[in-house]
């Protein structure tokens, strides 16, 4: 919403400066987006007097002028055709910033002659488009004074209006808020009905069924004859130009002026082009309207139109029709002042993609009580600017009755706002906003003004009082809180943090990727269900909710590879979706390693990442989440996007806690990523939460006084036997003594036979009661051999 200072002052009597007004507007909730004050760009420009203008000695088209600028007289070279002696001009001396270029003027030398200044055009000052010649100031202008003191410059405010403040889409509404806040006083708006000179030859009517009557509750018309639709006066053209509207003709300019000035869009029809009476009705199927913007629209029966006997002539509250528009030849018009349903207006404008100042206001709601006054004010202005005479008004329907009456308890202001405002001040504020306040004591009765449809209940009045009184006046209070704050995070939230930092400690870099991805990619990862495909994606490659975090991580690795970073270690923590219900969103942590495990190094060769990196990440994630170190089963099965022979699941009973493995080469090919790539996906909520404990005490540490003993074994087993089976069997051989079993060598070469492999394990025995004798150790060793043999068919390697 744009307006100028002088426009505001047509409604507001104030001595406040531009800065004061801007500041107050913002603190009233009418946020000032910008104030364009042309004067602020004109520092240093002064009035000059051309004393002498001779031909430049070396150039035919240039003039060499002597210009008086207060005390000094300057020599200025000028190319403007109108540079002549006696002229009062706008003069810039070196150092002054020229608004059009943003650069400071330098002392010049033009064709061998020094130029000590510049005489400016309107365009150079960004005050207009005129660049035909230099500015000619009135001959009585004092010389040497700042330009800003002799020309009228009107600052333009651009204010952003929140959707609840439809009334501030008119300059008067803004002036009213300022006045209510004490920054000046609102000038009265005198509405004197104009006596009609004749009966309107064009009638108006409402043609709706009872269930659609709310589409247009009121239609006021008035005919004019003997008009002359010429140019508007300068003040009106200046107003419109300043806010970005192009002056067209007096009648059109009047309607635009009413829209911005009083938030009251109007329409004028050229009466000579109308057929019969005007009526408001819903459009008929197949009906069309050639609109004033030069486009033709197909209408339907949800849209309200103003029609004559020939058909639709205007789209209610949105745009007028071309056929009945006014022109320079127009001498008879019909003025339309109507009330239209905001929702229908919004829907029509949206469906036809028409943005207009009228639509913007109608869909936010106009002052329903203002139709007749607006008609009278417009009548007066039309007669004033265009001459002629007005008919008696014709009115169909009536403004809906306003029955709002709100009980307002002044103490609610302190209760909600935390601020003490005297009741008299509250009444003054509400009165200033146009409310009618009655009653006294603890309960007042407030009737809000017709232009404030947003005020419907007590809390709206509380807000108005606090807003106008000023948020700055609200005291700053501390929230009451306990002396020592208790922890606030849930176990799940704490765990998510541990996993995040636990994975980062392992060298994985956290990233955040979209929750959506291309549906083709989603399908590759078990997703792409129709119920998880967006109806209105931002683009076709972000149309499916992600079924897994991996595809986005793989794509991220690809983008990094394109930048020359081939070794990638990324992880993300976030949701994945396998259904559209709240419970079908899973909290995941997923990581991806691509390329080598580290940079090349003089001491060790760079190693390609492999499935065991991913397994290690997964185990670390589970450990960070507080998952059980033991009891996790490793199963060689994983979803289709993993390499079938190099992937697995980590399970707790039937529950899968994580998948890990090499990414399937087919997936890499589809994403066009060069491997090797290994990944894991961890289901955060599959890790059991620790049991609530009464104390934080750790279990007592039991240490044995005896040294542990390590014994190595090498077993030859079938190649299909899982190492884990050998380890478990060895562990089970003597649960009291064996505390650890680890695999330290794997050999599957020809020496151990076809289809066989050799696994070397180290078994740690921890004596508990006494030092073990050789006989004891041999006995345990025999048990290990026996257990492994029984479980896996393995025999000691000969």
């Amino acid at each position: 919403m744009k307006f100028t200072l002088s426009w505001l002052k047509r409604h507001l009597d104030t001595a406040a400066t531009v800065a004061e007004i801007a500041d107050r507007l913002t603190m009233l909730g009418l946020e000032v987006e910008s104030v364009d004050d042309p004067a602020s760009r004109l520092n240093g420009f002064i009035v000059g007097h051309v004393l002498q203008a001779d031909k430049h000695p070396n150039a035919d088209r240039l003039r060499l002028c002597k210009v008086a600028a207060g005390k000094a007289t300057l020599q200025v070279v000028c190319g403007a055709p109108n540079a002549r002696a006696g002229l009062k001009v706008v003069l810039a001396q070196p150092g002054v910033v020229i608004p059009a270029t943003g650069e400071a003027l330098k002392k010049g030398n033009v064709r061998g002659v020094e130029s000590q200044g510049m005489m400016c055009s309107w365009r150079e000052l960004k005050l207009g488009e005129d660049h035909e010649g230099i500015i000619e100031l009135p001959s009585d202008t004092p010389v040497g004074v700042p330009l800003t003191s002799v020309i009228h410059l009107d600052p333009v405010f651009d204010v952003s209006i929140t959707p609840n403040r439809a009334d501030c889409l008119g300059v008067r509404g803004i002036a009213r808020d300022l006045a209510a806040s004490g920054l000046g006083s609102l000038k009265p708006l005198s509405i004197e009905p104009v006596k009609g000179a004749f009966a309107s030859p064009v009638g108006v009517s409402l043609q709706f069924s009872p269930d659609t009557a709310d589409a247009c509750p009121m239609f006021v018309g008035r005919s004019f004859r003997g008009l002359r639709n010429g140019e508007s006066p300068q003040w009106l053209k200046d107003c419109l130009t300043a806010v970005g509207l192009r002056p067209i003709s007096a009648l059109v300019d009047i309607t635009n002026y009413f829209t911005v000035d009083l938030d009251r869009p109007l329409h004028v029809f050229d009466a000579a082009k109308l057929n019969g009476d005007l009526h408001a009705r819903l459009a008929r199927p197949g009906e069309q309207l050639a609109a004033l913007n030069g486009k033709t629209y197909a209408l339907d029966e949800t849209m309200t139109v103003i029609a004559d006997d020939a058909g639709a002539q205007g789209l209610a509250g949105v745009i007028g029709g071309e056929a009945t528009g006014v022109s320079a030849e127009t001498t008879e018009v019909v003025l339309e002042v109507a009330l239209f349903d905001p929702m229908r207006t919004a829907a029509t404008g949206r469906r036809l993609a028409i943005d207009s100042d009228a639509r913007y206001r109608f869909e936010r709601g106009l002052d329903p009580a203002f139709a007749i006054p607006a008609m009278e004010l417009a009548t007066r202005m039309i007669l004033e600017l265009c001459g002629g005479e007005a008919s008696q008004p014709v009115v169909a329907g009536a403004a809906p009755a306003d029955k709002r009456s709100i009980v307002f308890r002044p103490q609610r202001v302190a209760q909600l706002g935390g601020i003490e405002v005297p009741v008299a001040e509250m009444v003054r504020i509400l009165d200033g906003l146009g409310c009618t306040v009655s009653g006294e004591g603890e309960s007042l009765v407030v009737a809000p003004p017709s232009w404030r449809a947003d005020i419907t209940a007590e809390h709206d009045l509380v807000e108005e009082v606090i807003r106008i009184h000023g948020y700055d006046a609200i005291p700053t209070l501390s929230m009451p809180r306990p002396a020592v704050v208790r922890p606030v995070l849930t176990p799940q939230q704490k765990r998510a943090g541990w996993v995040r930092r636990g994975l980062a400690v392992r060298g994985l870099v956290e990233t955040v990727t979209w929750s959506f991805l291309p549906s083709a990619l989603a399908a590759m990862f078990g997703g792409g269900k129709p119920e998880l495909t967006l109806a209105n994606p931002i683009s076709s490659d972000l149309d499916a909710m992600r079924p897994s975090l991996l595809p986005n991580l793989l794509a991220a690795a690809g983008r990094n590879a394109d930048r020359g970073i081939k070794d990638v270690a990324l992880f993300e923590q976030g949701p994945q979706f396998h259904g559209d219900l709240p419970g079908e969103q899973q909290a995941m942590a997923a990581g991806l390693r691509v390329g080598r495990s580290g940079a090349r190094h003089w001491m060790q060769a760079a190693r390609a990442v492999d499935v065991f990196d991913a397994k290690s990440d997964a185990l670390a994630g589970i450990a960070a989440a507080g998952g059980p170190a033991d009891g996790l089963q490793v199963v060689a099965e994983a979803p289709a996007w993993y390499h079938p022979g190099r992937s697995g699941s980590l399970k707790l009973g039937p529950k899968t806690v994580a998948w890990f493995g090499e990414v399937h080469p087919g997936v890499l090919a589809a994403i066009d990523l060069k491997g090797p790539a290994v990944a894991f996906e961890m289901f955060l909520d599959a890790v059991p939460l620790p049991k609530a404990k009464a104390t934080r005490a750790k279990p007592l540490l039991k240490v044995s006084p005896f040294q542990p003993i390590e014994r190595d074994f090498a077993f030859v087993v079938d190649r299909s036997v899982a190492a884990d089976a050998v380890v478990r069997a060895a562990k089970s051989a003597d649960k009291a003594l064996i505390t650890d079993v680890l695999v330290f060598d794997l050999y599957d070469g020809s020496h151990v036979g076809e289809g066989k492999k050799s696994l070397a394990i180290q078994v740690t025995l921890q004596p508990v009661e006494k030092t073990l004798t050789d006989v004891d150790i041999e006995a345990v060793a025999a048990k290990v051999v026996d257990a492994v043999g029984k479980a896996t068919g393995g025999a000691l390697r000969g």
Partner: protein
Amino acid sequence: MIDLDQVRAEALDSIAGAANLEGLEQLRVALLGKKGSVTALMKSLGEMSPDERRTTGQQLNAVKEAVAQALDARKTALDASALDERLARERVDVTLSVRPEMQGRIHPISQTIDEVVAIFGQMGFAVAEGPDIEDDFHNFTALNFPPEHPARLMHDTFFLPEKEDGSRFLLRTHTSPVQVRTMLKQPPPIRVIIPGRTYRCDSDMTHTPMFHQVEGLVIDKATNMGHLKGCLIEFVKTYFEVDDVPVRFRPSFFPFTEPSAEVDIGCSRAGGELKIGAGADWLEILGCGMVHPNVLKNCGIDPDEYQGFAFGMGIERIAMLKYGIPDLRTFFDSDLRWLRHYGFLPLDVPTLTGGLTR
């Protein structure tokens, strides 16, 4: 008669001349071993008369002791030089690089959320969460959005396909639906913040289709706008780690709060560099207000008995302002160079006791 002085002198000479530990050991054996020369002299004492034995014995013992001492001294010296030699041999070029280690990072969004949680946690706010896929009721209706509100139409809300009954799920456009879920689940008093992913169908220089918000909600019988101001001013100062940062509350409009405010913080843009703190400019950072009575009613809370405030802000926005990150879109690009530069070390856990940042 053997000249013991000569024996001693010769022995000491040869010990002093021993070049290495092996030679020295041979000398020891030759002198003091079972068949050593000094040992042999000692044995010869048995053949002497008692008087002679006494005097010679004493002298001989002195020689033996001197030899033994010399052997020890020489051994210590040879040990030391052997060690020196070994150390010299073992010298490496310590300017060579260490084994490569991968350094992980925490994304600025996670770090910022942790900071925000640390601050509000200190004020007694718990952390609530909710689903990303929402329904119209939680995202709009319960929050007092009028039915014709543009956000409910195809404008900036992502919708999932329409169901048979005409309803359709959507991606939450703000974290506010979790306010509703919290109030429906838990009776007041309530003090929660709600960080999370949010979605709007918008993509340009300053908008991404997904971003993060943190929402705050306080409901009890006494919390008023003064507390709202106090709470947020305290947050701003703590979060930006700037003591004198002016904070301005300006009236605004949101369907789910009344009175509503937008909050600006002071900043300076002198020299093209943005600095949070006292300065000539204002920077909008969040929206807030007293929870609208309709929202309380929609969540089964009596607005005549309970009241409170809510606020919401963009995580990326406050991260950009604090850490000088120029471009929103880069948050979601997974550019490792960016992540390493703007990311945080895993052990930099923000706390209020230790400070939010290094």
